[in-house]
């Protein structure tokens, strides 16, 4: 098991390095510029986003004891979508303190959506399945709101909204990396500290309670921390499908379900997977870039089906 985990880590590093190098052959000053000013920061953003989405997915699956739970099911992504749509309908070129208005609004929306669900989750009597239902209710309500905004928005804003909703790694340079890194690092580091209490959840929420886990507090912490990380990712990149869902399942199949392995390995594999998918998205259509969200969805869906089918045997 240990050598297998090491092998996967080495594989992840290889893929990350390869992602910087693949692409048209670049030489001279221009090549230097493209590699160091465009590709490296983009790979760094990809690593941060992929790692955060995958870890939060793994934590939420553990927390809700539901293999389908991700940040998409607790209102985070839906809130971000409404925020982004609002900003795009208003004026897509506006900035706040040098940050794009879309990013700021998406971040605020994501936090608002998750906060609604989190306030419900902190109630002592709520069960995990109730919290998940609250998340779905918030998601439905916000998508109704999003449809309303789309109805009154003009066609340019609608096009921009469609682009945003596909999910892509933006060219944000090192400044973007610096803005994203502290929030993602904080969220991931603190979530990893919850490993022990999440492990107690593996045989059910009520048993975990009787073993001394403060269930409402754990739920609130994990939801707040996870939403903070995911909100900052979604704010910059839009919703990137399937990373949070597929990566934990992939790691679980390869290495088994001890959270002491599952959580850190989801982090590694998530980072490598998103960056690799992005490199793929750069190359697959010559001269054009696909949004990485399309690639993750196209690869993620069949992978998930394959994993489930293999697991059943």
């Amino acid at each position, binding site marked *: 098991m240990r050598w297998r985990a090491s092998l996967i880590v080495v594989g992840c590093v290889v893929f990350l390095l390869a992602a910087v190098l693949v692409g048209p052959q670049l030489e001279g000053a221009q090549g230097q510029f493209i590699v160091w000013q465009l590709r490296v920061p983009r790979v760094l953003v990809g690593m941060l986003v992929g790692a955060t989405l995958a870890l939060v997915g793994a934590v939420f699956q553990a927390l809700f004891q539901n293999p389908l739970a991700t940040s998409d099911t607790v209102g985070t992504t839906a809130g971000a979508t409404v925020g982004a749509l609002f900003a795009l309908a208003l004026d897509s070129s506006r900035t706040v303190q040098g940050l794009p208005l879309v990013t700021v609004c998406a971040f605020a929306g994501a936090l608002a959506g998750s906060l609604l669900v989190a306030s419900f989750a902190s109630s002592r009597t709520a069960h995990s399945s109730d919290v998940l239902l609250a998340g779905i209710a918030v998601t439905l309500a916000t998508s109704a709101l999003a449809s309303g905004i789309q109805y009154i928005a003009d066609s340019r804003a609608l096009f921009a909204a469609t682009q945003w909703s596909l999910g892509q790694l933006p060219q944000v340079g090192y400044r973007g990396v610096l803005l994203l890194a502290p929030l993602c690092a904080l969220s991931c580091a603190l979530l990893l500290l919850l490993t022990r209490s999440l492990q107690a959840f593996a045989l059910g929420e009520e048993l975990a309670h009787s*073993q001394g886990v403060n269930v409402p507090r754990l739920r609130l912490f994990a939801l707040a921390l996870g939403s903070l990380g995911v909100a900052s990712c979604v704010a910059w990149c839009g919703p990137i499908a399937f990373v949070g869902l597929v990566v934990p399942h992939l790691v679980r199949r390869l290495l088994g379900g001890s959270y002491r392995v599952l959580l850190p390995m989801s982090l590694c594999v998530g980072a490598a997977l998103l960056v690799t998918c992005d490199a793929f998205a750069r190359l697959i259509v010559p001269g054009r870039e696909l949004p990485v969200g399309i690639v993750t969805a196209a690869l993620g869906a069949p992978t998930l089906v394959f994993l489930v089918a293999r697991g059943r045997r």
Partner: protein
Amino acid sequence: MNQLEVVDLSVRLGERTLLDRVTLRVAPGEFVALIGPNGAGKTTLLKAALGLRRPTSGSVRVAGESVEGLDSRARAARIAWLPQHIRAEEPISSLESVAAARYRFSESHADSRRAAERALARVGATQYAERRVTDLSGGERQRVAFACLVAQESDILLFDEPANHLDPAQQLDVYRLLGELWREERSVLCINHDVNLLHQVGDAARVRVVGLRAGRLEFDARFDAPALPEHIGNLFGVEMESVQGSDQRFIMPRSRRSP
């Protein structure tokens, strides 16, 4: 001081009354068997004792303190349970899941694993320490959950039908182990469907049997009380018969009482 003290406890769920002013004390070192028909409120009583169900009225005190006011870890040090159904969705190894039951202790993961190994050995489950809980049968999973309870090392142990779904040999094992834990100066409150299994805990004459029906306490008698078969018969609406074995008395259902 009473170890577990349930006073005037009522739990209502909408129109339904699950528990109706139940008062039950389990003294330190006492073994109480809780019996009653399905839906009598037995599991609700255990869950209320753990702070999993909030009482509509009345109180639950554990070692003198209200269970709701206790810090989670302090509560886990005093009271633990073996649930009737154990969920296992996560493919985690048995050893890891028993190690996780040491949550209340501030100790390294290596220490937790050592304690988990001892607990698994004690319940006779060492052979599936490395197997995933999702791959275990119901009986095996029950045994792993029992190891979790042992590893938690609490003073008051609650059991929800620990012999459920087990074969006769395993049923005897489980009750013998229950008796062992009891004699280590613990208090036990155990939901039970077959009082004859109580012989296995040893010193069964000291066991108290409490009957619960429709949320109310119906009787509270010692295991060797002559009137126990009559009490049990009234509780379930059946005629019970006592059969004297070579060294113990067996209580069997004979026929259904006409309504």
